[in-house]
């Protein structure tokens, strides 16, 4: 209608996602740091579990997701710290865009970053632990997408809260980790089924659990995020 009409929810989301990805692409510092952090975690796990390859192989699914989870805490905290420089968050709040678009955009950008991270460290894990994608790359990609969404959705909501609190580096994992346990279990189990084959045909069910988790927490985050940003 008039020129002052606010942008639609999806339109605003798209603009904000592009803004975040562009910011990421221009510096690439955050993505690089994340990849090195995750690789260091993988190496540490390999040393801690010892040189026994059967143990490494059996733990590979869990190792992958713990590396991604630990790196995600850095990524999530950073994604809001960026906005607080030069009070960019206040600028976004003043914009006519919906706060929920901001949630969708931030979560999506974070999820994309985590998917990329997973794809990069996967070959390294395969080499370190001696695993192969028995089920093929398709199922692995699905697990990676659903798992990254599961971390990024509630993670973005909690990062928005903890970034403005005291002791934010302690608070984010304290809030986020217990919440993510079901998703972590599902993603790790599904990943090991991709690595080792699926005798009892459980893969679909773990994916279902992961998808259900995504839907529950993305919906709740969508509804509640505007309350986190107001005031």
């Amino acid at each position, binding site marked *: 209608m008039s020129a002052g009409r606010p942008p639609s929810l999806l339109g605003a989301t798209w603009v904000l996602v592009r803004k975040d990805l562009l910011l990421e692409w221009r510096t690439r510092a955050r993505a690089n740091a994340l990849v090195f952090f995750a690789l260091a975690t993988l190496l540490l796990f390999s040393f801690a579990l010892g040189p026994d390859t059967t143990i490494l192989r059996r733990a590979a699914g869990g190792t992958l997701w713990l590396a991604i989870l630990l790196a995600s805490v850095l990524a999530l905290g950073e994604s809001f710290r960026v906005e607080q420089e030069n009070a960019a968050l206040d600028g976004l709040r003043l914009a006519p865009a919906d706060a929920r678009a901001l949630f969708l955009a931030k979560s999506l950008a974070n999820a994309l970053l985590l998917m990329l991270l997973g794809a990069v460290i996967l070959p390294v894990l395969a080499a370190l632990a001696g695993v192969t994608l028995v089920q093929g790359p398709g199922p692995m990609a699905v697990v990676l997408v659903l798992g990254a969404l599961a971390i990024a959705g509630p993670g973005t*909501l909690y990062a928005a809260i903890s970034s403005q609190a005291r002791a934010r580096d302690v608070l984010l994992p304290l809030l986020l*980790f217990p*919440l993510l346990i079901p998703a972590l279990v599902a993603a790790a189990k599904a990943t090991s089924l991709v690595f080792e084959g699926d005798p009892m045909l459980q893969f679909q069910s773990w994916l279902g659990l992961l998808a259900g988790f995504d839907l529950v927490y993305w919906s709740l985050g969508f509804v509640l995020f505007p*309350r986190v940003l107001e005031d």
Partner: protein
Amino acid sequence: MTHALFTVVGVAVVGGGLYALVRGPASWRAGVAVLALVLLVSGAWYGLVQAPPDREMGNVQRIMYVHVPAQWMALMAVTLNFLCSVAYLFRPSWPKDALAEASAEVGLFFGAVGLVLGSIWGKPTWGVYWSWDPRLTSEAILLVAYAGYLALRRFIDDAERRAVWSAVVGIIIAVDIPIIWFSVRWWRSLHQMQSSPSTVDPDMVRALRWNAFAFLALWLVFLSTRYLIARARTEREMAPPPMVAEAAT
């Protein structure tokens, strides 16, 4: 029908009692505390002496009289926390925030006690202290989540932000509550399903009820006292700094 009626009356009595303890003089809380102590001592007699040993678990079954009430109180407290969180977001007020804080802490306390008692009970009956059974796992997650919730409340200095954000977190944590309660029905687990009076001997039901009322009285005292502590803090935070107050007089 009678069940629904019983629930409505129960909620009204507990809610009214809580309201009275919060608003009334300190002597009321002291009175209920004494009552709780009497109930607890007599409840221990019912549970340890008067109730018969179970035909399978023998005397170990007596742990039920403290484990089950503790878990009931934890469940009531976290449900109250959820209701306060939702109510706060719809219509903010300081009492709701204070009650949310109190119920989270009391729920975490009773939940932790109940979980440890269950673990002690598990060793002689199941043969293990802990198993990654759906019931046990989901309750452990809930307790850790509430520990995070209480940490959040400590780490935010601005009272209004603390209230809104902890309400958001309280709602998100609450997703786990129905999962705990129904986990023994939905999934196969090591933990047995909820008992009902028809599956428990009348003597044992009496001991359980007696202890449940003792725990309920304690729950009311704890919750109201913790509520007043939370209220006093927000009031201190809201009060003008001393210099301003002096200038005003």
